Each structure stands twice: as structure tokens, then as C-alpha cells.
């Protein structure tokens, strides 16, 4: 096994031995169980003073919107979790002296950094795929609703976690775990607010606000990826309704009128590669 894959494997083993995977699994299953109970009650919901049973189209609308809210919660857990596991990945090993024992081995520092990245990426992707699949399965079983493109949504959500994890890993090559974690989290929430600003700017034709939103999206593409996931989960009748609503739908972080442009997807991929390369460069030049 190459040193890079050895480090990737040990990163996953660490998450397992520290009971991170167990804790995540228990909490995720508990949340999925609760949402299953909630969704199971949805078809029997009545509306109005005469307790009219919910119509199939209303059920579909409710299920689609709840799916997006729940996906937002899972994407948030994934993003915050990615920050928490990546922030100590390098700096904590330097502080504890683990790196002092590993790096004099006949390996490149790049092997360690990319190995950690691969291990963390595997964790991020595994969580995104497993939790999303289970949740969508529960929604389908209880309401018969399936989002238009569940696979695309999962890819966007996993990419959002991967982007934030990569940024945090880069910061971890130079900063203490707490510092890198806080910077990444602030970036995440600023990008989220930037996404809201972008929506307002577009709907109200305010170029300044729109540019601020666009700038934040380019600085950290997490919100752009989240909006991509939202679009993949929106049924066509919801998108049509949003377009009709116009300014009424402005700024909502749970809606997306257009799919993520290919140029943005390529930009996000390039951004991720650039941050990883910067991390490799930064770690290689650091004196321990």
C-alpha cells in the first residue's frame, strides 16, 4: 500500500476508534427515525375547518419542501462535521508529536496531507451517501415522494462538505485546530448569507448586492453547491411556482430557480484542487 493510502486508511481507522462513526450513526439513525415518524403522519393530514384530507398534489408539495429542509439539516451536519474532523487533522498531530515520528520516514509530506484528505473525503462521501439514501428511502416509503434527481443532490451535498473540509485542512497546516475551525465556520455562514444577498440582488436588480453575493460564492463555493442540491430536489411545479412568485421568493436559502451552471461546477472543482495544492505547498514548507 502506498504511504498516501496508508495515511488515508489510518485516518478512517482513527474516526472509527474514536467512536466518531458510531456517534454519527446513532444520531443519524435517531433523526431518520423521527423524520420517518413525521412523514408517516403526512398522508393522513387534514386541512381547513372541515378537516379536508390533504390532496395528492399538496402532499407532494409538502414532502418536497420538507425534504429540502431535512437535506439542509444533513448538509449542515456534514459541513460542520467536516470542519470538526479536518481542523485538528494536521495541526493536532503536529502539536502532539505524532508528525515528528511519521515525517522522518521515507515519505513525502504530500503523502501525509493528501492521505489525510482522501481519508476525510471518504468519510464525508460515505456520510452523505448513507444518510441521504436512508432519509430519501424513508420519505419514499412513507409518502411515495422521490425528488427529481436524488443522485445529483447527494453529489452536490457531498461536494459542499468536501469543499469545506479541504479549506479547513489547508488552514490546519498553519493554524491551531480551534482557529482553523472557527475561520472555516465563519466562512461557511458568510457564504450562506452571501447566497441570500445574491438572491435579493438578482430579484431587486441591485448590482452591488448581487456582486457581494457573487463574490462570496466565488470565495467559498459552499452555498452555490447547496443551491445546486436544492435545484436537484425541486419538482418542476415548485420551480414554476417560484418563478411566478418573483420577488416573493427572493433571498430564500431553500429555493433555487436555476440549476448550478457548468462554469460554476468547474470553478468549484478547480477551487477544491487549488486549495488542496495550497495545503500541500504550505505543509511542505513548514518547519516542525
Amino acid at each position, binding site marked *: 500500500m502506498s*504511504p498516501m493510502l496508508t495515511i488515508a486508511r*489510518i485516518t478512517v*481507522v*482513527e474516526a472509527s476508534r474514536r467512536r466518531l462513526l458510531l456517534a454519527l450513526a446513532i444520531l443519524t439513525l435517531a433523526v431518520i427515525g423521527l423524520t420517518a415518524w413525521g412523514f408517516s403522519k403526512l398522508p393522513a393530514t387534514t386541512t381547513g375547518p372541515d378537516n379536508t384530507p390533504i390532496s395528492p398534489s399538496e402532499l407532494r408539495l409538502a414532502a418536497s419542501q420538507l425534504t429540502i429542509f431535512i437535506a439542509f439539516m444533513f448538509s449542515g451536519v456534514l459541513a460542520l462535521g467536516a470542519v470538526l474532523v479536518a481542523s485538528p487533522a494536521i495541526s493536532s498531530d503536529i502539536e*502532539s*508529536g505524532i508528525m515528528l515520528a511519521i515525517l*522522518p520516514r521515507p515519505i513525502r509530506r504530500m503523502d501525509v496531507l493528501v492521505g489525510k484528505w482522501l481519508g476525510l473525503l471518504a468519510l464525508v462521501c460515505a456520510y452523505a451517501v448513507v444518510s441521504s439514501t436512508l432519509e430519501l428511502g424513508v420519505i419514499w416509503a412513507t409518502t411515495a415522494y422521490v425528488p427529481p434527481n436524488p443522485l445529483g443532490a447527494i453529489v452536490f451535498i457531498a461536494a459542499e462538505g468536501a469543499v469545506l473540509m479541504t479549506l479547513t485542512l489547508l488552514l490546519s497546516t498553519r493554524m491551531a485546530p480551534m482557529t482553523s475551525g472557527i475561520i472555516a465556520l465563519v466562512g461557511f455562514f458568510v457564504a450562506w448569507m452571501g447566497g441570500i444577498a445574491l438572491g435579493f440582488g438578482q430579484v431587486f436588480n441591485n448590482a452591488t448586492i448581487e456582486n457581494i453575493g457573487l463574490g462570496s460564492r466565488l470565495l467559498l463555493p459552499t452555498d452555490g453547491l447547496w443551491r445546486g442540491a436544492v435545484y436537484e430536489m425541486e419538482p418542476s411545479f415548485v420551480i414554476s411556482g417560484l418563478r411566478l412568485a418573483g420577488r416573493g421568493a427572493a433571498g430564500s436559502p431553500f429555493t433555487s430557480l436555476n440549476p448550478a451552471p457548468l462554469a460554476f461546477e468547474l470553478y468549484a472543482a478547480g477551487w477544491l484542487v487549488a486549495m488542496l495544492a495550497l495545503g500541500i505547498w504550505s505543509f511542505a514548507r513548514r518547519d516542525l
Partner: protein
Amino acid sequence: MPAPSTDRSTTRPPEAAADAAALAVHTQDLAKRYGKTVALTALTMDVRRAEVFGFLGPNGAGKTTAVKLLVGLAHPTAGQAWVLGAPAGDRRTRRKLGYLPELFRYQHWLTAREVLGLHCELAAIEPSRRSEEIDQALDLVGLSERADDRVDGYSKGMQQRLGIGVALLGRPELVLLDEPTSALDPVGRHDVREIIRRLKARGTAVFLNSHLLSEVEQVCDRVAVVDHGRVIATGTMAEILGGDGAVRMRVQGLTPGVPLGSFGPPSVEGEWLTFRGLAADRIPDLVAEVVARGGRVYAVEPRLQTLEDRFLQLLKESEG
């Protein structure tokens, strides 16, 4: 007895690659600066292959920085360093190195066997040899019975033993030990000295960074004393300690003030006479001279200078 060479008197020209290849370590004016802090000024030293080399110095002298430069953990600001004939930090050469850091910890969620297995993989030891290597290392450091326990259940001394085991994986040609006995009890220290002697016997060079002078005195062939980032003395233990020995004798029956030939006038405290600057091989002659002059000798105590005395003296001279 030859005097210890000081500072640059033993330096070799860095361009003499053949010389550098014949040595385990060769540094030439190696310097390291962290911002405004100067950690190493101009470190010049040689460590021969298959010798145990002691690296001494007060806290902050730059000892750990020097070791980090040799294993590639830090990059020099100036100067050059060769390890086993290759520039320090060379990835291929690091296959032949074993290193025990001063302050370290292993992945505490792994067992000792797993830690050793991880380092076998990273050291590119043949998979077919790994099991044997791990068992040998565990046996050597006395951890065989706790091999499958997680490291977080280990005492500090056991972690130190594990660190030494990790450093010895793959039969390295050069082992750099940074304060290897700092967390060990007397039994552990004795074991480490035995391990170092065994390494020397099989032709491994050992670079021992320690502030425990008695330990260095017991196992090292040669030592370098470093202060303020530069070597202030280097040589064999005998060269470092020099000929400044002394002998105390308890004598009765000598006439006060009578000269004792070439042995010089002693300092007198009651019945005790102290002769300074006396080589050990002249003590029998001194006793014979005292007896010939009518003295009755009740005790003879050679007082060889300890490494600690000499170390402090060298530091004082360096400050001066």
C-alpha cells in the same frame, strides 16, 4: 593526552563528497533561525559510522533543532548537512534512519503492534519481514506482553520504550535518539544503554542527544558539546575530559615542606594531600615517592574529572 578539538578544527570541506559519504553525519556551518530567534549559529561536526556519538549542551543550545534538521523536519537557514552521504532530509536516505523525537506521542487509539505495523508500512519494510521486525522490536524494548494493548493505556515510560522500538525498525544505519531515557526509571535507562551497546556492536551509528551526562559518559565513543548553536568542543571522552586529573592521599609521617620531586607541592588539608594535574598512570610513582620519603600511606583516591565538571568548565570558557 590530546586536547579536545574545538569548534572548526575538525571540519571537512563540504565539497569533499567522498568524505561526507564515509560519515554518518557531516555538517558544515549549519544554521537555523526561527524569525528573530537564532536556534543554530554555525554547527560543524562529524559523526562516524558505527560509533555512539553524544551531543551535549544546555537547554536552548540548539540540540533538538540540529536533530530536526538532520531528519528533514526543519529546513536550514544556511550551511549544509549530510546524513549517510546524502543531503539531510533526502527521502531515500531516510529509509536508513531511525529517529526518536524528544516530545512525541503515537496514535493512542492504536495498539503498540499496530503502531509498529504502521511505521513498517511507512518505512517501506518488505511485507514478509514486518511481522518479524515487529516481534523483535517488541522483545527488544520489553513490550511483548502488552503488544496488543492500546497505547492510551501505556505509562510514559512504556511509550518511551515503544518510541525506541519504532526507531529501531528496519535495522537502520543511523539512529538518532533525542533524550531517549527522559521518562524511564533506572531499569529502563539500563536497558536503553544495553540497546545502544547492541546497536554499536552490529555497526549502527547512534546519535545520542541527552542532557544526562552520566549516561553519555557510559555509552558514547565521542561527544560534541554545543552551546549557543555551535560546537565548542568535540572529541573522545578521554580527549574531552583531558588530563586534568587529581589524586588525594591520606599520609602520615612526611616532613612538612619537603618537596616531592616532579609531583609538585600538594595542597594540604590535615592528613590529606591533593596533587593536581596528575595523569592516572603516574599515581603508583607518586605513592612510591611518598613511601621513599618516609610517608605512611593510608588511602589513595584518584579524582578524575567528571564529564559534568568538564561540561560546566567548557560552558564557562565559552561564555568567557
